[in-house]
């Protein structure tokens, strides 16, 4: 029924003079895995707190599963799962008593999903949660979260600190079991390799605004990497059109730019570059360049302000 799991309209949140969310218009479709990324302070946590009704916006509105965030009932909150890097679980219980409790709390509890996910991790039913390794806790946490059959599952850096085996098991469980019950998954992570593998869409949040919402591949196509020779002095980053980053490496100028699919070679020639060559760029570097640009800008603003 719900076309969009998340919808915000002009959502603004101000803390003193700091604008955490700036008239944010975000729509997240139902179903699929949506990666949400942004530098620290981009507004992710504020967004979640408002969406879940733990914080009121300064202005604007938001809905979660078609319900106004400010009017979410406990019953609605039961349809939302949340997993963060802490993997907070009741340490005094064992896995079996935890699932027994969950079954009572969640009417849509799906034991099949739980069994299939937990199978990927080495967790025995009688094992005390306090004694589990980080990877096992993550597995148990994901298994319980997915088995609740949430309509929306928010994963906040869920694989942080996991070893390669646990990470692989986590991603497999997420991709092939989680998606069976048509949950919408919002995946916050800084691990681009994971995002490239699992995400249907890549949402980039920056200074409280949405700066990109597309597939990871389509985002990558927005970013171009050029290597050119400026004999004499290379121009300043602010004098190069659409440049996100400019580096000088052994006399050559490496330029990463945004949305310049056509005519950039000619443009570079017109500002004095010769032998410009375009080289491929991976998602990790593309996202880095994209985020780094505004990092610097906001820093220089701070200095001016001070």
């Amino acid at each position, binding site marked *: 029924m719900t076309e969009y799991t998340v919808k915000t309209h002009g959502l603004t949140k101000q803390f003193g003079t700091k604008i955490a969310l700036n008239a944010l218009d975000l729509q997240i479709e139902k179903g699929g895995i949506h990666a949400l990324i942004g530098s620290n302070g981009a507004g992710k946590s504020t967004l979640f707190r408002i969406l879940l009704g733990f914080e009121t916006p300064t202005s604007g509105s938001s809905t979660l599963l078609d319900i106004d965030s400010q009017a979410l009932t406990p019953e609605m909150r039961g349809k939302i799962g949340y997993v963060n890097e802490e993997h907070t679980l009741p340490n005094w219980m064992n896995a079996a008593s935890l699932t027994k409790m969950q079954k009572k709390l969640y009417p849509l509890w799906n034991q099949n999903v739980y069994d299939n996910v937990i199978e990927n991790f080495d967790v025995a039913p009688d094992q005390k949660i306090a004694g589990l390794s980080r990877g096992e806790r993550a597995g148990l946490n994901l298994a319980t979260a997915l088995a609740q059959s949430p309509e929306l599952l928010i994963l906040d850096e869920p694989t942080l600190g996991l070893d390669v085996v646990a990470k692989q098991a986590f991603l497999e469980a997420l991709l092939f079991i989680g998606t069976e019950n048509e949950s919408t998954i919002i995946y916050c992570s800084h691990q681009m390799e994971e995002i490239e593998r699992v995400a*249907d869409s890549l949402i980039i949040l920056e200074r409280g605004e949405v700066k990109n919402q597309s597939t990871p591949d389509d985002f990558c196509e927005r970013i171009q990497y050029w290597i050119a020779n400026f004999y004499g002095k290379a121009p300043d980053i602010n004098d190069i059109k659409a440049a996100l980053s400019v580096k000088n490496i052994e006399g050559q100028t490496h330029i990463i730019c945004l949305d310049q699919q056509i005519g950039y070679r000619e443009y570079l020639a017109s500002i004095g570059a010769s032998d410009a060559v375009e080289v491929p760029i991976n998602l990790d570097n593309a996202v880095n360049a994209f985020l780094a640009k505004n990092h610097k800008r906001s820093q220089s603003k701070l200095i001016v302000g001070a």
Partner: protein
Amino acid sequence: MTKIVALALQIVPGDARPIFRQIVDGIREDIANGKLPVGSKLPSVRGLAMQLTVNANTIAKAYNELVCQGLLESHKGLGMFIAKPTQLLSDEAQENCLKAAIASFNNAVMYLDYSAEEMTEQLLNELKKLNRD
């Protein structure tokens, strides 16, 4: 039922090519070196997604591209198969493709200690494996 072939694909983290491109290139390579003969049945989209731990939409995108390139054909209800070679490129595009391939071949062999004749002989043997009449 036709048996599914095992695809020896590897996704390289940090590769500048997007994942779907790595899959397209990998399958093309295996077709070229004879590991995937005409008529081979490929894993399903979901099957390959599970093998590689990759979103199924990415696999679907790679398969679609290979279908557009004429290398794969989808048989409704049966799956995805390696297609008979057909020429979909214009004469000019074909010529450019060949030139690019020769340039990259030259690039790879330029410092090897083989005579042109020795290399041609081996190359000819490989080309014969492509099964062209």
